[in-house]
């Protein structure tokens, strides 16, 4: 067929040739024979980038003699350690597994300690500490701070932990569950408490009152307020008497600690003082020791009687007895008192005055009674005669 040549497609675009690619590697060249399009450009792929090795500190005989000698290590063994390190790619579990130098029984900590010391020394010799970069210095620090004893004891602990018995593991899990339960409960309580606080304090003040939600914050607030209060003329606050709360030792008022001290401090500004309330302390014992002279001086009276409720004035006791049930009687009392020289108004109702007045009044009443009796007797005699 003569026309065969004409219908043959142009193969140049897709014609293939057997090419020999050489894939470079460090150790060998793979002759890779394959079909590929002539004009196809394939990027050269190399795997040499994966040819990585770990670095070990390098030293020569002189450096070793001057800096790296060690009682328990010969140079040969140090060299051997470096070679094992390279072979094991710096993986310590492997290094300790492969390390076999004249039947030595060195532990991983011994090997690490030696290797790190050598590394640190070589690092220091290459760059003096003063001119090290930050990362180098951190490395140097880490290397020189290695403590084989600590590491060994840590390992021992780790081993002990690994081989714990069944009951210890159970106990741990029980304890963990317990802790979990407690914390969950704590969170629930905290939420409930938060909820309660929100309800109680709503609407909230503009300033966040929640900064005082711990007892120490409250104490601080109390101390602050107390300090400012002491500057003022009319004091609204009274120290609790507890140095822990007040921040100073209140010697002036040695009141015994009020059981409500904590509460008292709670909302001092809002509620005002609670001091006007009758004190819960019994009346027969004075809170302050006063001598008889002082009691007289300050007008302090120890009253054994039961006091009437409410507020009473001492002057009441001077005016009230003058008024009797009937006006005739009242006039009579007034006349007697006038006769006896007791003024209408007694300016200073001191206890002594009141006492005196009361004794006069008793005599007035007796006089009145006797008079009444005498008039009655006279009336009877008139009737009889």
């Amino acid at each position: 067929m003569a026309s065969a040549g004409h219908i043959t497609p142009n193969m140049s675009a897709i014609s293939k040739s057997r090419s020999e690619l050489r894939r470079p590697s460090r150790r060998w060249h793979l002759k890779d024979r394959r079909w590929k399009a002539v004009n196809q450009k394939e990027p050269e792929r190399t795997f040499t980038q994966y040819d990585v090795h770990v670095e070990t500190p390098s030293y020569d005989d002189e450096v070793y003699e001057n800096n790296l000698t060690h009682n328990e290590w010969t140079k040969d063994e140090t060299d051997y350690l470096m070679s094992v390190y390279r072979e094991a790619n710096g993986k310590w579990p492997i290094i300790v597994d492969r390390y076999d130098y004249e039947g030595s029984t060195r532990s991983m900590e011994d090997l690490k300690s030696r290797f790190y010391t050598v590394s640190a020394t070589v690092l220091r010799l290459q760059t003096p500490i003063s001119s090290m970069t930050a990362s180098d210095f951190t490395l140097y620090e880490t290397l020189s701070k290695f403590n084989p004893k600590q590491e060994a004891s840590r390992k021992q602990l780790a081993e002990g932990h690994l081989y714990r018995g069944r009951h210890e593991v159970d106990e741990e899990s029980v304890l963990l569950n317990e802790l979990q339960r407690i914390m969950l409960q704590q969170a629930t309580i905290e939420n409930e408490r938060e909820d309660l606080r929100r309800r109680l304090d709503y609407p909230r003040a503009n300033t966040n009152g929640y900064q005082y939600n711990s007892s120490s914050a409250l104490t601080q607030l109390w101390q602050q307020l107390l300090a400012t209060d002491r500057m003022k003329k009319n004091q609204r606050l009274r120290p609790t008497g507890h140095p822990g709360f007040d921040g100073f030792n209140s010697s002036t008022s040695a009141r015994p600690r009020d059981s409500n001290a904590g509460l008292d401090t709670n909302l001092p500004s809002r509620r005002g003082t609670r001091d006007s309330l009758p004190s819960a302390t019994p009346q027969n014992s004075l809170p302050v020791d006063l001598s008889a002279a002082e009691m007289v001086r300050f007008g302090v009276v120890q009253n054994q009687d039961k006091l009437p409720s409410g507020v009473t004035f001492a002057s009441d006791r001077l005016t009230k007895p003058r008024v009797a049930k009937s006006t005739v009687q009242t006039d009579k009392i007034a006349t007697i008192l006038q006769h006896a020289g007791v003024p209408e108004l007694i300016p200073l109702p001191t206890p002594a005055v009141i006492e005196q007045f009361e004794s006069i009044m008793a005599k007035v009443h007796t006089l009145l009674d006797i008079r009444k009796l005498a008039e009655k007797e006279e009336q009877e005699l008139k009737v009889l005669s």
Partner: protein
Amino acid sequence: MATLPPTQAPGPAEYAGDDITALILDCGSYSTRAGFAGEDTPKSVVPTQYALLPSGEPLYGENAIHLPRPGIEIKNPYNTDGIVEDWDTAAELWEYAVTSRLTGTRQTPASRNGLNDDKDQNGDVNMEQEMEQQADEQESPLAEYPLLISEPSWNPVKAREKTMELAMEEWGVPAFFLSKNGQLAAYSQGKATALVVDIGHQNTSVTALWEGMVIRKSLHHSPLAGNWLNNQIRTMFATQQPPVPLVPHFMVKTKSAVNANEPAVATYAEFSKPPTDSFRRLEEDRVLTSFKESVVQTWPGPGRLESSAAPGAPNGYSNIEYTRTLPPRPFEMPDGWNTVFTSDRYKVVEGLFDSRAAYTSPEQPAPRPEDALPSLVNRAINACDVDTRPTLLNNIVLTGAGSLIEKLPERLQTDLQTLFPNPKVRVLANSNPVERKFGAWIGGSVLGSLGTFHQMWVSRQEYEEFGAGVVEKRCK
């Protein structure tokens, strides 16, 4: 090196399977697996056993060894320890495994196939010269590809060097590498740090791997593996009442259905010269393999089979009594004889975990307690550094065709967790039986297709420079 999850393909820069096309040869004492790197299963799986004709000619391959020929002996180039003994046969067998399915005969180059040559008067081409040239080229079919061979972890130095010599001298491979089974099996699971428990045919081995490197002191192996299990089943059959007749397939011509435990009604094949014992044993093993696949099960724990079922259980009520209450499994022999197996189907594997529970007979002594699986793992773990142990226990890779017994991974997990109550023990057993059977090969396939591995091959130049001793230095 960060490991990728097994589901994720490596990046184009890392993958080099298409560029290198390495051959992976995973040789075991039961079967030899071969294939190209980058594939997910070996293309060629050949039994390691071979048939030796009375004439002295060896026959390889599945078809050859199962044919009952008069006077054939079944042999294995491996010894019972899983090490190659008969090197000449092993070399031939391996070559057969590679060439029978993978490389084949090479096509004659177009320049010399004679089609374009000038023809003589009769229209013929002078072929003789071409044939000679071809013969030269055909001498080494393996010379084209780098070769990665797997080896047991206890392979002696001599055997390793011999393998290297074989690959370099006889096959002329351009590059070679020798890697440990356990290491490769871990790679197949995408693990660089793992404790590999490989239950094979002759041996069970344990290998601890830390960041891709084998911890040598952790290497242990024991003979409690697939073959030992076969012998357990044989002993169990013999001690049953009535004894279970083990008749291989080739003996049976026809059979008819019989009720359970009744004598078989079958016609048996007649041989003028009965097959040798080794052949019969091989065929019996095939029956036992199907027995293992369909009937045998491991007691999944907790506790041993002999131990009491539960703390509150009545005295003497052990797990084994409990297994009697489970539905039994039937098994039919090739000649139609059939029965059901209850607790015995658990008991045959129990010896792997509890040496005292093993069946014993004069031919089969009781296994040593330290050869049991949990004890092997324990010994391997104790040889490793304390800091590595929790990680290793958390990455136990169970592989090997012998591990395909039902519930065996679960049992190993519970036994090890009892042994180490504190750290988290995790036994990873691929649910795909193919991946467990060919674990080491698949790992080799992964390794061989990695660009990063390209630097590791021992090249021909290096071999020529340093000799076979280089294998010790490079393949660690």
